[in-house]
């Protein structure tokens, strides 16, 4: 599944970028995240509880900051596992200065592949749910940066 969008954040680009590459900050915006464990400056592990329809599962997610070109571009790759279910995701974020001073336009894209039980049972609901979760994640990022 491919998702993309664009949002304007009332914060300077450097601050947005710093937020995005800090697992403790960005991680808290992930859907259902219960804990974040930083492995090193590029790798971190999250635990999250995610529900699709009537199915919910607790995922262990290994994340990698695959690309980081300050202050304009970052790619985060994630692979999550729950019993009988796996999620492979790549999130791309491109930052540009906004029209207003101290604002940033973030274009984001996400490629999400869900395998296993959640894909087979939640198939009809999964795209809507994933779309909502991704939107919530970026709303959260904006909200925290604008606090």
């Amino acid at each position, binding site marked *: 599944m491919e998702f993309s969008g664009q949002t304007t954040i009332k914060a300077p680009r450097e601050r947005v970028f710093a937020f995005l590459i800090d697992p403790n900050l960005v991680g808290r915006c992930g859907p259902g995240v219960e804990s974040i464990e930083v492995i090193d400056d590029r790798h971190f592990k999250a635990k999250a509880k995610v529900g699709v329809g009537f199915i919910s599962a607790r995922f262990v997610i290994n994340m990698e900051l695959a690309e980081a070109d300050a202050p304009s571009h970052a790619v985060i790759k994630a692979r999550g596992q729950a019993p009988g279910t796996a999620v*492979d995701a790549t999130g791309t974020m491109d930052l540009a200065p906004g029209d207003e001073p101290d604002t940033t336009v973030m274009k984001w894209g996400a490629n999400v592949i869900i395998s296993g039980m959640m*894909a087979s049972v939640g198939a009809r609901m999964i795209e809507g749910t994933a779309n909502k979760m991704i939107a919530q994640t970026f709303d959260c990022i904006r909200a925290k940066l604008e606090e």
Partner: protein
Amino acid sequence: MTIDMLGERVKRTEDPKFITGKGRYLDDIQMPGMTHIAILRSPYAHANIRSIDTSAAKSMPGVIAVFTGADIPYNPLPMAWPAGGVAGIRNNINTPRTLATDSVKWSGEGVAAVVAETAEQAHDALEAITVDWEPLPTVVDAEKATQPGAVQLHENAPNNIVFEWTVGDKAGTDAAVDAAEVVVRQRIVNQRLIPNPMEVRGDIGWYNPGTDEYTVWMSSQTPHIQRLLLTAFVTGIPEHKVRCISPDVGGAFGTKIFCYADMALVMFASKAIGGRPVKWVEGRRESYQSTIHGRDHITYLEIAGKRDGTITGLRVKTFANLGGRLSTIGPGIPTTLYGRVLSGCYKIPNVYCEVTGVYTNTTFVDAYRGAGRPEATYVIERAMDLFAAEIGMDRAELRRRNFIAPDAFPYDNPSGLGTASGGAKIYIDSGNYEPAMDMALAAVGYADLAATKAEAASRGKLLGLGFSTYIEVCGVAPSKWIGAVGEGWGAAMWESANIRVHLTGKTVVTVGTQPQGQGHETTYAQVISHELGIPMDDIVIQHSDTLGTPFGYGSYGSRTSSVGMTAAIKAATKIREKARKFAAHMLEASVDDIEIDGPNYFVKGSPDKKKTIQEIAFALDLGFDPPEGMEPYLDETAYWDTPNCTWPFGTHVAIVEIDKETGQVDLVRYLAVDDVGKKINPMIVDGQLHGGIAQGVGQALWEGAVYSDDGQLLSGSMLDYAMPRASWFPDIELHETVTPSPVNPLGVKGVGEAGAIASTAAVSNAVMDALAPLGIRHLDMPYTPQTVWHAIQTAEVSR
């Protein structure tokens, strides 16, 4: 006074427990110290396993043990029915292991397992297992999987081909097609189905460290075969150290014939944890991924003939999807049970069929109700309708002109039935197809079809009538045939029965077959009561436990009545012979002077001088005074190997109405004429037909297993898979003709599969009949509103 109940609509003796909630299915069994095992299944349809970390799971609450494939020294599961045989064609075999070790080939293959005190704890602990996966590209379509450049699943199976099997005369058929006045070609898909018995599968393994013996309870159609396969082929444990028991089985439809990894897993786990019982029961969603699926053929058919309606040739190429690894008899279904009956009840001089068995990243495919024969019937019955439409001939008339004539039996069909087979002569032994069709068409009002359609049209509905004139091969099977390499198990398929008339006159019959809802306890008792004159109430039928029943091959292929009950009749015959000898001794008469009438053994001409079989049993079982050379006890065992299969036939008719605005198809009438030979219990026969018909209708109209391109089962639960509901069916009208089978003393043919074999094609032909005025020639099943609506829209735009 005994009443002979053979052929009567006797209420089932097994029902009181089921209607009061006292049945005992696998999951109802609770044992002291019982543990529960849960299986971690692959989310990926194709992946290598780099490593599995189970350390965290081992310390989860309630966890007793965690296993991966590396812990289990067993062999991969056996594959018992290689296709090919006479042609010597290679089968590239890959079967599941108890747990996968290096790679997974479908979404749902088991990779690790947790034993815990409760099922919830076992499932919770699965969350703590981490697998380092290397996902690989996938292929789910059997035809695409054989194309150059396709993803390869197994090194030993180039182009993902399991086998390439052919039957019939290629040169002759090619010539017939080339020379024909008319050739009709169509690609048709027989979609994948999920069988859905209402009880899912499960097993309980219990290792007794005191005796070094295992007991395995399993929801299975074949406990004797499973004991053989699990011991001799999978675990290496000696056969006499294992006992297999099937408790009440809540439906099976083929799915419970096979040897599954979980059976070996519970055996291994129970021993590994020191002998506590280990229970595994699959969830329904799990079942959709770990129990076999059915059908899944892509077929190119060519039917050739003359404008006068003479069919001269049938050429078929089929891609049969067998899944990521092979199930126990997966290759046998689209070959022997499909290709050899493709010409159905028609005299077609030239038939040639090629079947390519294919690996894909999907759940394995094996026998589902009808197994190969519904697919064959769908091909030939769609072909007949397509040909009739092409030459503008009435569908019934075309069939009439091509039926095998009633005086042509025994009939050797050109699909190699007679030549298949290691010396066994398999031929269609009897049939009379036209009267069954005439009866069905008269009953349904075929002559008034135009008026019926006009009436429906006045209500805005497209009405269609379709029928199929089917035959099936069942009552499997002569061992000489099914044992021939490539035509079956490489084993036998006889059946067995033991009868003991005890001191009290109560009679215990043990059999090697295994019911799953067919009412065997009732029908066997009807037969034995008829044979021995003992009241049904005094007879018990015992089955389903390798301890205490003679070896048998189990129940599938509509074989229990024709093969199993013939074994029981043979045993009863032996009982009668011995009783007669002893009666002569008791009555001080010569054996030749003893006559038998039901339970009574009397001296010819002196009906008062008699003993009943139960009196004879009392004296003979005590054995105080047997005649010279006679052993005590009325206890006889018999085995029966049938000389031929049986050949039920009939005509099924469906009427559908289609709402043009929504594409909704409603089945408004269903009528069947079946010839299943003589009937032991017509009530049970009717029930078997009802159920089979409903399953076949389900395939035509609603059901289908759907995979995404990356191998995810999108119809992965009962929410997503269209299980047929009560309100989707009309009442089913049943009629009969009776042509007794000549191969067994009862004259029965078997009826478990007939409904499912005939009905799919009948409904499909009805839907196509309804849509024909729009210029729609063929659609693939299921005929969901979306499919039909889209076809109607497309047709109307192009007109």
